[in-house]
């Protein structure tokens, strides 16, 4: 599909000699939310971490196949990895704010890309925090160390930090797994708002969450993408027996 954001064919990933993604092919549509589900260790994180090349940091990581983002192979030698990572943002499972002020957490992404105008940075800090539904809680304490925030606030700060550099795609790796229901609800609502302007891929262990937030869903099992399609169809009329077993909870 030409208008796909990501076109992936035969992605294979291994750590050292262990193959953990075994030939995955899939297309991800722009401005949609795609949820990835599957049991622990099936390669969901590995899959999305390969899309912004953050896995390059792991020495034993090897990948093959065509991973095309907007008509360009992201593993091409010519690819500017730094620019790619700015365009494809990522929010991690465990909130990982920098040990700096709330303000600096967000300003960092702008500064490293050469933006040094204070007014523009101020504006972006405010608008990003508003989009991440955190502004009202922190607007009077922007100088406060980010590590003093609660887990849910930290995660929203990490989302704001990602939004600040204006990515086109946001990858979420189980963003709510460490959060309470209220924070989770806030982040789900946030994702709902974001999908108008961003392509979103979210890994989650929470089936209800996947059903609530996504339009497309994929089921991973042991490094293979067993089934991919419209979320509603995947959850109500799965084609594969294994998908059905998993979503109905019959899986071990």
């Amino acid at each position, binding site marked *: 599909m030409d208008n796909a954001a990501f076109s992936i064919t035969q992605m294979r990933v291994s750590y050292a000699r262990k193959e953990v993604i075994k030939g995955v092919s899939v297309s991800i549509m722009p401005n949609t939310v795609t949820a990835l589900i599957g049991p622990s260790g099936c390669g969901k994180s590995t899959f999305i971490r390969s899309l*912004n090349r953050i896995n390059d*940091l792991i020495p034993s990581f090897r990948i093959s196949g065509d991973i095309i983002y907007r008509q360009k192979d992201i593993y091409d030698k010519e690819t500017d990895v730094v620019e790619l990572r700015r365009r494809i943002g990522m929010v991690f499972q465990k909130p990982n704010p920098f040990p700096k002020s709330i303000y600096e957490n967000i300003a960092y992404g702008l500064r490293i890309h050469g933006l040094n105008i204070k007014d523009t940075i101020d504006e972006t800090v405010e608008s990003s925090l508003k989009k991440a539904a955190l502004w009202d809680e922190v607007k009077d304490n922007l100088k406060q160390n980010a590590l003093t925030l609660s887990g849910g606030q930290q995660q929203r700060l990490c989302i704001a930090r990602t939004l600040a550099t204006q990515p086109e795609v946001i990858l979420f790796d189980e963003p709510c797994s460490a959060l309470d229901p209220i924070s989770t609800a806030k982040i789900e609502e946030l994702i709902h708002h974001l999908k108008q302007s961003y392509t979103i891929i979210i890994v989650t262990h929470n089936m209800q969450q996947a059903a609530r937030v996504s339009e497309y869903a994929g089921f991973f099992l042991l490094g293979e993408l067993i089934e991919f399609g419209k979320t509603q169809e995947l959850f109500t009329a799965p084609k594969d027996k294994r998908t059905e077993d998993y979503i109905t909870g019959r899986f071990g």
Partner: protein
Amino acid sequence: MNKRILNKRLDGLFKVLGILTTVFGMLVLLVLFIDVFLDGASRLSLGFFTSFPSRKPEAAGILSAWVGTLWIMAVTAFIAIPLGIGSAIYLEEYAPKNRLTALIEISIANLAGVPSVIFGLLGLGLFVRWFNLDRSVLAGGLTLAILVLPVIILSTREALRAIPFSIREASYAVGATKWQTVYLQVLPAALGNIMTGVILAMSRAVGETAPLITIGALTYIAFLPQPPVILSGEFPFIRVGLQGLFDPFTALPIQIFNWVSRPQKGFSVNASAGIIVLLGITLAMNSIAVIVRYRQRKKTRW
């Protein structure tokens, strides 16, 4: 049932043992302190700090010694801190994981355990003789610099390693380069612990005697290295220069060593007073290290 009582007793026993060993360590330090203090406190006066050594114990002071120590420490810090931190950053963040790197790492770990006299011999051969620096401030500073270098490298690497991987990931994920990640995130986050290590290394260097004696530092010096800044009444009023680096020097531990080895009672009093000063410097530096570490801990709870 019996086992639980036994465990409880053992627990109590270890607690008592722990307290005893701690108290023992503190007592030894205290006794040392009191002894030195009783001997030397009477000699501590302004004159003691502003007088050169002398044949008469009552007139002798530590002026050339503490100024020399200051010079040496400045040279050591100037060389060892940037070099040590730089090497640690390279080894920890950039070096490929291969045999050569492993060899370098092992060598550094071993160097940290080499007795300081050996470094003195190296300094004597390399700086004093080969570079022809003679028994100068520069030769002494360089010798102590290579002595503390491995210690600084090791402690800095430890500090860098303590920064969670997730912080680096977060930085890369917003599009930072490796250098930006290291320089703007990892280094600042590790700075407190790096400083702690550096200060402790320097405080160790302050008291080093053996290497300085080995390179032949003089024990009787009645003049100071030329100061780096000289003010004068006539044009151009100020002169800046590092000529002092090439002047001979003495240092506190050497002065103390010299006084201790003299038979007259007066000199051993002087030695005690010198030891009080040296201990004061060391304690002050260690306290700063503790404060820096404490403040860093309060700032970052991962």
